[in-house]
């Protein structure tokens, strides 16, 4: 169930069901690898219950493939070690050698076993708790939900061992554990379904999990305070792997590190989940099996740690042949590399008409003026698209339109920032865009602003976010691309964010106070307390040795906006990319986490580096992206890329945003004069895309204009609704525009009228058929005004008009 849910959550990774996946382990006479690799190179087992999963890879022409399922394992001394399916288990103290054989190649792994006869009771914190997560007991939809289920409550994914200790052993009058007869324990009988269990069958007696839980109970269900803490996990064989027939499986091994320097194989108690079961599935022992072409993340959870192995399944697509094409920059090179790997053929380059409409809407929010379109279409020079991009980036409209997007996220409303303060902050953002303020300075100025927001508009950022928690969550969402709110009350269910992280970040803002509801002051005291222990957290970014700084935010911004921070630059370029492509490389744009990997990691890395290298020059990045062939692809798909939604092989058709649509209707009906160069704010306010404050009219609300209540781009809904259809067909906005706009058009000759209308609405000439239909309509009517109104209305209701493509 869970896996399907995750799959819904992450539409990022696509898949194509593949017939080849039907028989994943079909024996095929495989070629001999040129080299054998075994992880780990040596094994040390320190107790009777210790074990180690070995991962075997073979090198085939430079490509690594998993051979764990095909290798033969031989123990040199069965009294010291046994091996089952690549899992080395101790049999007694001593040294031995594990021989791994594939074909004629052999690798030997030295193994040492110690502590075999020393007692090693099941460790509650490191084994019992992760097991309850693995069996699904402590998930958010079962006993991990805030009120638990059926009276039994666990901490979500075991974030609070104390809650779990009490729940399992003390609470409910000790009903869940039976130390004298362990198999009589409700904790076992319920998931075995020996007693009715709302959560259904969750355990079998043959499961290793059953044995371990049984053993823990039999040993007295003890909970020793651990002397060490777990410090992290490592997944072998590495962060990403490519699977291709006949090698369609991949064994994973998870090793946990502890604070005393020791480490232990936890493959048997870790939780594995595939984000895309249609691409790859994973079993409880960490064995991944590919099922279809595409990319999937296998998330691995152990205690607070969540990490992912990224699996790419490739196969030969019939009829696929890469067509070499120019790759003028790194963007095209990296996009194409991914497309070639997954055998997706990109679409052609879009037409000039499509380009000018697309890029104008993207960069300025507005349809281009007919004159500009005419000039552009007539221009025969090869660099005209690049020049158009440059020109648009310098416009006021661009600075204003992109300020609007930003103000949406900052929740800039007159309710939160009264008496003109909202406008001042909007104006500041616009000014930052206009002067192309480097993004690191942009962030620093906002995040360290203090004072009265009427005088220091940037202070409005924090004034608009009144509580420490909201500041933490919004700042993380906007600047770090992370949705942190889950970690306020428990460790994040899909990411490594812990409550400690949350409150450490919160500590940064603990002393930021709002005075008179309008000004930001720094208090001398105030802390963020970890709810479970009431411990005051060290602010994020501060070094342990640091004395209390005058402003905790400075250390945070130093950490955040430095070059080399893995999140800051990438989050912002990903946002820009998403605005231009209708989809982020990480998508949603504010949901960066290992279980939601970028659809093209190399591309995102390169963009991030370029952004840093340019001194966080946003205009430079927009220019680069808009000039790329990837951006200029047609939205017309073909058989070899129709299924692709995330690799940017073709343009995405998108409904215009509420503001774009309102302005497009105004401009097309010629009711709104095109913005003059250097127009003032007052002029600009006529346009919904150029206004600092959302209008929230019936029309814009119907089309998903956000009310600016959250920092989530998801607040702007993009799914077409019935309300929108009613608004278009029967709403006042389109109706009035068509009626009033008809006067201008009615004065033209029929032929000019139709051509002008097409140029305004679609940036193109009508086709012969379209021209004929329109002319017929106009000449057949007795009421010219009505005929023009109807034509305008029809054009503004076509899908070509309503969508960006």
């Amino acid at each position, binding site marked *: 169930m869970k896996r399907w849910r995750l799959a819904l959550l992450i539409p990022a990774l696509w898949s194509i069901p593949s017939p080849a996946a039907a028989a994943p382990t079909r024996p095929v006479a495989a070629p001999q690898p040129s080299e054998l690799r075994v992880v780990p190179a040596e094994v040390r087992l320190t107790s009777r219950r210790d074990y180690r999963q070995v991962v075997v890879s073979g090198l085939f022409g430079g490509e690594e493939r998993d051979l764990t399922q095909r290798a033969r394992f031989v123990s040199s001394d069965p009294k010291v070690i046994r091996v089952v399916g690549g899992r080395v288990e101790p049999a007694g103290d001593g040294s031995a050698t594990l021989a791994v054989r594939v074909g004629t190649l052999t690798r030997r792994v030295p193994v040492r076993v110690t502590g075999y006869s020393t007692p090693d009771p099941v460790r509650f914190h490191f084994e019992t708790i992760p097991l309850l997560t693995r069996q699904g007991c402590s998930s958010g939809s079962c006993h991990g939900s805030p009120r638990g289920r059926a*009276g039994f409550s666990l901490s979500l994914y075991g974030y609070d061992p104390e809650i779990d200790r009490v729940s399992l*052993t*003390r609470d*409910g*009058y*000790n*009903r*869940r554990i*039976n*130390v*004298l007869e362990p198999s*009589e324990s*409700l904790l076992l*009988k*319920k998931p075995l*379904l*020996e*007693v*009715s*269990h*709302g959560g*259904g*069958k969750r355990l*079998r*007696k043959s499961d290793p999990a059953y044995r371990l839980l049984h053993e823990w109970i039999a040993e*007295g269900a003890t909970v020793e305070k651990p002397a060490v803490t777990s410090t992290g996990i490592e997944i072998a064989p590495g962060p990403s792997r490519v699977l291709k027939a006949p090698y369609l499986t991949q064994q994973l091994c998870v090793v946990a590190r502890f604070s005393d320097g020791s480490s232990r194989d936890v493959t048997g108690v870790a939780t594995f989940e595939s984000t895309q079961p249609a691409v790859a599935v994973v079993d409880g022992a960490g064995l991944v099996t590919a099922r279809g072409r595409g990319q999937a993340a296998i998330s691995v959870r152990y205690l607070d740690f969540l990490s992912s192995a990224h699996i790419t399944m490739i196969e030969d697509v019939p009829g696929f042949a890469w067509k070499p094409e120019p790759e003028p920059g790194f963007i095209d090179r990296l996009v194409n590399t991914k497309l070639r790997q997954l055998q997706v053929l990109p679409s052609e380059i879009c037409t000039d008409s499509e380009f000018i409409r697309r890029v104008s809407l993207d960069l300025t929010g507005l349809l281009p003026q007919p004159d500009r379109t005419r000039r552009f279409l007539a221009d025969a020079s090869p660099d005209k698209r690049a020049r158009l991009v440059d020109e648009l980036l310098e416009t006021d409209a661009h600075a204003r339109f992109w300020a609007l997007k930003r103000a949406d996220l900052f929740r800039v409303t007159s309710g939160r920032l009264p008496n003109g303060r909202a406008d001042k902050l909007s104006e500041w953002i616009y000014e930052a865009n206009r002067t192309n303020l480097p993004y690191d300075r942009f962030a620093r100025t906002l995040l360290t602003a203090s004072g009265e927001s009427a005088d220091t508009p940037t202070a409005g950022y924090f004034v608009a976010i009144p509580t420490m928690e909201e500041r933490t969550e919004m700042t993380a969402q906007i600047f770090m691309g992370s949705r942190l709110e889950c970690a306020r009350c428990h460790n994040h269910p899909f990411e490594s964010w812990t409550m400690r992280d949350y409150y450490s970040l919160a500590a940064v803002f603990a002393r930021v106070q709002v005075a008179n509801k309008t000004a930001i002051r720094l208090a001398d005291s105030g802390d963020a307390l970890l709810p479970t222990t009431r411990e005051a957290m060290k602010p994020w970014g501060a070094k342990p040795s640091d004395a209390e700084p005058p402003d905790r935010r400075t250390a945070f911004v130093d950490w955040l906006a430095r070059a080399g921070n893995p999140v800051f630059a990438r989050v912002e370029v990903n946002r820009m990319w998403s605005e231009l492509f209708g989809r982020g490389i990480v998508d949603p744009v504010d949901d960066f986490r290992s279980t939601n990997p970028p659809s093209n990691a190399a591309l995102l890395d390169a963009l991030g580096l370029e952004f840093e290298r340019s001194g966080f020059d946003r205009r430079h990045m927009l220019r680069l992206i808009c000039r790329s062939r990837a951006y200029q692809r047609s939205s017309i798909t073909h058989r070899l890329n129709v299924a692709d939604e995330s690799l940017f092989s073709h343009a995405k058709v998108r409904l215009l945003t509420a503001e774009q649509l309102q302005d497009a209707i105004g401009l097309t009906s010629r009711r709104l004069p095109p913005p003059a160069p250097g127009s003032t704010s007052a002029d600009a306010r006529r346009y919904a895309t150029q206004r600092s404050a959302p209008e929230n009219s019936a029309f814009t609300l119907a089309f998903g204009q956000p009310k600016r209540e959250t920092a989530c781009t998801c607040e702007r809904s993009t799914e077409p609704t019935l309300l929108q259809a009613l608004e278009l067909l029967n709403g006042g906005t389109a109706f009035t525009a068509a009626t009033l706009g008809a006067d201008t058009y009615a004065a033209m000759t029929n032929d000019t009228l139709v051509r002008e209308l097409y140029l305004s609405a679609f940036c193109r000439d009508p086709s012969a058929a379209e021209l004929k239909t329109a002319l017929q309509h106009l000449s057949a009517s007795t009421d010219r005004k009505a005929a023009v109104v109807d034509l305008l209305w029809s054009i503004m209701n076509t899908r070509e008009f309503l969508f960006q493509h």
Partner: protein
Amino acid sequence: MSPVVTRAAAVLAIGTVLALGASARSGAAPAVQPTPVGFLKEVAPLLLKRCAGCHGERANLGGYRLHAFQDLMRKGGGGRPAVTPGKPEASELLRRIETRDPALRMPKQDEPLSVSQTALIRRWILEGARFDGGDPTAPYRAQLGPREHPAAPLSYRAAVPALATAVAPDSGDLAVSGYHEVTVWDAQSGLLKRRIGRLPQRIQSLAFSPDGRTLLVAGGTPGEYGEAALVDWSSGRRTRVLEFGSEILLSAAYSPDGRRVATGGADNTVRVTEVETGKRLWQNRVHADWVTSLGFSADGEFVASAGKDLTVKIYRATDGALFATYLGHNRQIGQFKGQHPVYALRFSPEGRQAYSAGGGRWVQVWNPIKTRDEAGDAGDMEERFAKQGHARYIEHGFKKDVYALAVSRATLFAASSGGEVKQFNLTDLKEVRSFPCEPDWIYSLTLDEPRRRLIAGSYTGLIQVWDVESGKRLSEFSARPGANLAAR
């Protein structure tokens, strides 16, 4: 409903004979058995254990329920009944447990039934799928009768929590909950004096009859069985089972005259039974969660039950009519706000004063009549919550929940899950003393008034005994038969 079943069963009984004959001829089944399969004894436990988890009271996957006889004959989601008497082949139940198709075989994703189990069910269907119980609509769990309990282990590998304690009025011997038994100790020396075995697995509540001759034992097996039984104290024999059911009982109490017994537990229900006849006088299920603790008022007028659902319910003892609900543990606003489960309830030995506690910072002291009056008059509930009303609050100062209370005329004792025990003066509601204590959960507290001793039982099985006057610890020992054997 039942006439239909009966008729169908009768018709099919004839068919059964024919069918039996047929199978005997074909040699597929063994010769006609002398004793037919007993449904309640043999088949029902199997269905309960292997099927009813998904097809039972809580879930009816596929539209089938197998926890009550009547439901076996109903058409499920597949359009055919689970059991067609006399016709194994037409019975979906048998088809599903016998098939080799892993996609269809039941229990789903689980070990299959054994060959002998499958054969048993087949034979029962063939014999006409007869029901040998009472009410075909009632879950057969309730018709299986009280359980016969196994003997307690000779020695305990580990301690079990001392969930209940009681002091024999005459001898002063201490009865402690054990595993399938009650163990009897000399509270002073910690010596094991007797073992009263063949009792429910967990014992949650122990109480002596006013005459001291009978021990009321309540408990069960979590999640599947509950029982309240009377044990003859002198012989140590279970003389009568007053109540049994499908969830563990957590509390049982005698009326002051010893003629009635009230029980409550994890089935959220309160029941009152007449001791002499064993007749159920009434039952009431108004709690939304477990009944954790209950008792009679000293005048025998009221029964009150504390619940995990944050309330205490008060009933008329004669007929069980709900008299009032005490909501002091569930306040949104005001000085004494908080929402907490209630784990302990005691009435004062005289009068009608009630004491209740659980989560939160206070033991609450209140009166049923006044509770009702306050609940009945005020229109504005929020304001009413804000008012303290007649209730009084003893701030106990524990950091944890209160699981046990003991009350005498002037004194109240409370014990917490933090392993703290305190004494309070009921006149000024002030703390008198705190007893030195081992820090683990204390589940039970017994005041031995004649001997002025206070006895607490904890999670670790530790019994601690204090002198009430001095507050000194008189003794402590582990109520674990094996440990004492080992010590000796």
